[in-house]
């Protein structure tokens, strides 16, 4: 399940760009690899972040994994509902499991991210 309207980062985060804002989350592949998510350490609201910077952490019953931002900018929204419902990351990673919204400071970065097709190929290459 790799939605075609999103852009992907090699650390398995996705972004959905709308105007000057990007919503980010973790991919279905990431949540599947993690297993049942029990906790997410969310990014800080209003934090300024750089592309590929660690902005949070996801803990599952199998592993703890960092969340990286695919883009640079300022965190303008955080999905605080995930504190009570970390399982949304498993159930709906591209919907209710969104993590944060970033106001882009360098929109050009988005072009450097993978398309759905490229991400699919990337995943295939990771397996082999």
């Amino acid at each position, binding site marked *: 399940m790799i939605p075609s309207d999103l852009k992907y980062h090699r650390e398995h985060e996705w972004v959905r760009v709308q105007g000057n804002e990007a919503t980010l989350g973790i991919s279905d592949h990431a949540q599947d690899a993690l297993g049942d998510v*029990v906790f997410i*350490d969310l990014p800080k609201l209003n934090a300024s972040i750089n592309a590929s910077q660690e902005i949070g952490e996801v*803990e599952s*019953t*199998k592993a703890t994994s960092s969340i990286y931002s695919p883009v640079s900018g300022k965190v303008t929204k955080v999905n605080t509902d995930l*504190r009570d419902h970390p399982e949304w990351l498993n159930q709906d990673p591209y919907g209710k499991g969104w993590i944060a919204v970033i106001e882009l400071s360098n929109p050009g970065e988005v072009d450097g991210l993978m398309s759905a097709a490229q991400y699919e190929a990337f995943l295939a290459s990771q397996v082999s």
Partner: protein
Amino acid sequence: MSSSIRIGIIGAGPGGYVAALRAAQLGAKVTVVENQALGGVCLNAGCIPSKALLAVIELREKLQKARQFGLQYEGAVNCDLPQMIARKDRVVSGLVNGIATLFKSRQVTHLVGTGELLDERTIRVRQPDGAETRFSVDAIILATGSSWPALPQFPVDGRVIMTSKEALDLTAQPASIVIIGGGVEGCEFAVYFSGLGANVSLVEMMPALLPLEDQELSSLMEREMKKRQVAIHTDTAVKRVSKTPNGVSVELSSGVHVEAEKVLVSVGRRFNTQDIGLEKVGIQCGPRGEITVNDRMETNLPGVYAVGDVVGKAMLAHVASAQGKVAAHNIMGRPDTIRYEVVPAGIFTLPEIGRVGLTEQQVTERGLVPKIGRFRYMSLGKAQSVGETSGLFKVIADAKTDALLGVHIMGSHAADLIHEAALAMEVGAPASRLAHMIHAHPTLAEGLMEAAEDLDGLAIHQGPKRR
């Protein structure tokens, strides 16, 4: 039998009552003076009552996971605080009575009242009804403990601004609470009150919660507190606590004001050295006001011993008991000394912490080179089976000699698990022995073996390290 030796003990906490029983076992005639319940702070307002209450939170959280486990039940799981407190009180009074029964069985006399030294062999007891008695002995053990200090910046009234003593008796759940102090007690209460459903803010002056613990465990605890949605304010001092019509307003050094229904003050302990005749008799105290003792637990006056919190070492119940036994042995002609190299300790947060020996930071400060092995609970079959996957085993060895320097465990049953490491340190076993010893499967104890194996990168159930 040396039954002629008479011992007077002031204080019946875990230092005093254990000293009394050990001395009585060895044939002494023991009189213990205590003006409050037997068992001291530990049993009446500390370790035991807090564990009795935290057990309810743990059970509730297990039940909240029940449906994931395939266990169905009807309705909600709610805390009935008055019943919880009543059960806690039954646990405490049962154990207090247990000490009284042990005293009787060993012919230890309990005098109810406040003890004071008149000279180095005479104790005066002021009874609650005002009457006074005095008695002479061959040796004295001071075990008066410590208490909650009166800090002018935190005007404790026992209702809105509380100490742990009142917090353990709260029968109405607060909607919100600010806990001042992110040490052991503060963290345990943060778990308790967040488990009850309160909004908890935890304020700590140092840069990390549990500032005396290994930093790696401190940061893991911070994450566990975030899971519980405790608002953490580290590196933050409390500037002012002021009462408001609805509760309290706490002004932090960061400029933030936190409004809450209650405040719990979890900072500092005061040595109980007042009005027990120390100056009169000439007993020396140290710079912090603690009673000075040698490693035989004897004060500057021969035959007068002191044990427990009042001597200002590790302020732990089990250290007090160990000191009490050492004092009793010395009085009874069995020379003994106390050592503090191997003192295991537990922190009863959820998940709990068990530790023994040095932290990684202490190892480095001492100029030793640490070698570190880690293993995570989530990689244990037992942890997965029982659904307790949060936590870490951390073994610190001397890179040159393989000596075990410290072990730190966070996770389910950590405070019990730590004793294997403590015994290894006690007998001077190198870290490789922990790795070599066969551990039963499936157990949480396997984590200690794997962490010891990881010192050489040889943990079986762990992939190679990234980087």
